[in-house]
Structures are given as C-alpha cells and as structure tokens.
C-alpha cells in the first residue's frame, strides 16, 4: 500500500472526532490498534487552568507531523497511522491531540503511538497558551528552557 494511503495527518479548528482517526487506521491486516488522546487538564504546576489556546505554523506543522508518521512506518511494522491536532480554544476535558496506530500485533502499535506523541510534542511547531486563574502563560517559553529543535538535535547526536 502506498505511503500516502497509510498516513493521515491533520490540523483542525473543530473538536476532534476520534472515530474518524480509528476508521482511517482500521485495516484488515491489523490485529491491534493503539490510540492516544491528549486533553486539557484542570490544573498545571499548581495553577487552576481555565482553558488552553493553541496556534501553529500553518504548513510546517502538518509537514512535521507527516515526517513523524513516515518515521513511524519506517521503524515499526505498522499498517496505518492517523494524527490530528486541534487549534484555538480547547476547554477542560476536551481533546487537543489524538493519534491512532494499527499493526499486526499490539507491541508495535503501543510503541509507535508512544513515539509519535513524544515526537509531536518535541518538534511540531504548535504552541499552547495556558489561561489560568490569575494570568496567562505560553507553555515552554519560560526563561531558561532549551530550544525544541536544539533538544532533538542533542538527543540524536
């Protein structure tokens, strides 16, 4: 099956419909599907979170997501992978990111799904602003943090 039929990466302004990802990842040769959903939690670092707001670098964000998906296909015996990230306001309990990975056996699906969410958080140009009781904060932009790209380069060195 050509790679473009095995990968679906999307950025959306609407609530994430998980069923669309699992429908895409479904495959007759798959005996397992691992899914991951990341949601807005009501607390962070002792702050009471009101909501999160996401923005991305349009074009590059999708491109980096597709690179991660292609790496997943190269490293594990995976049938299909779907990755979706939501932008804009994401309220408490709502999903900001979702991944579905299908494979012949569960081990590859679990590992690939774990890898995909970790890489997405490290390198895809998406940012979140936390609105909490008493203020707002761009997560990751606090003084002293290492750059996203540099961190990945160092890990690969």
């Amino acid at each position, binding site marked *: 099956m050509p790679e473009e039929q095995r990968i679906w990466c999307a950025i959306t302004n609407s609530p994430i419909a998980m069923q669309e990802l699992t429908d895409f990842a479904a495959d007759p040769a798959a005996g397992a599907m691992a899914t991951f959903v990341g949601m807005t939690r009501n607390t962070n670092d002792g702050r009471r979170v009101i909501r999160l707001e996401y923005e991305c*670098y349009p074009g590059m964000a999708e491109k980096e997501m597709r690179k991660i998906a292609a790496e997943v296909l190269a490293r594990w015996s995976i049938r299909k992978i779907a990755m979706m990230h939501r932008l804009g306001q994401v309220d408490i309990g709502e999903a*900001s990111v979702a991944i579905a990975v299908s494979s012949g056996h569960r081990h590859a699906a679990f590992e690939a799904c774990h890898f995909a969410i970790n890489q*997405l958080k490290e390198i895809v*140009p998406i940012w979140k602003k936390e609105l909490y009781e008493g203020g707002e904060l761009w997560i*990751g932009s606090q*003084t002293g943090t290492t750059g996203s790209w540099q961190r990945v380069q160092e890990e690969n060195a």
Partner: protein
Amino acid sequence: MRITLRYFASVREKLKRSEEEREIPSGATVRTVWDILKREHPELSAMEKAMSFAVAQEYVDRDHPLQDNDELAVIPPVSGGCYA
C-alpha cells in the same frame, strides 16, 4: 535582499506582529537576523537558548545562509499536545 519574517506565540506577542518583510544585508545568516531582532527587542535575549528557526518551513541552524525571498520563522519552544 528581502526576506519575510514569521513570528509565533510568545514572540508574536512581544513583537506585536505575526509577520513582516525586511531588507537584510547580502550574505546574512539566520544569526545575523536574530542579532538584529535582539538589538531591537532586548527582551528576546531572555529566550536566547530557547529559540529555533525555520527557513522555507524546515528547521535550520543559526549558520544557515539566507537568500532573497526566503521565509524565516522564529520558533519559540514548541508545546503541542497535552500536559501529560
């Protein structure tokens, strides 16, 4: 030569704009432009180590030479996904 600069998240808010065109000296690298931005907005220096850059939507290092009509994006630490 002329390039387009893109700003996101905390950088966009600090600079109060999301993009602009700039005339830069020929032979300029990413570092040249970053140094100019830091001179104009000293508060960016606090994010010195944290900043990444992309040209034509690909991550590049600071020695990357710029060309006429390039799009250079200043990329603060990304934070996609959830907290978990």
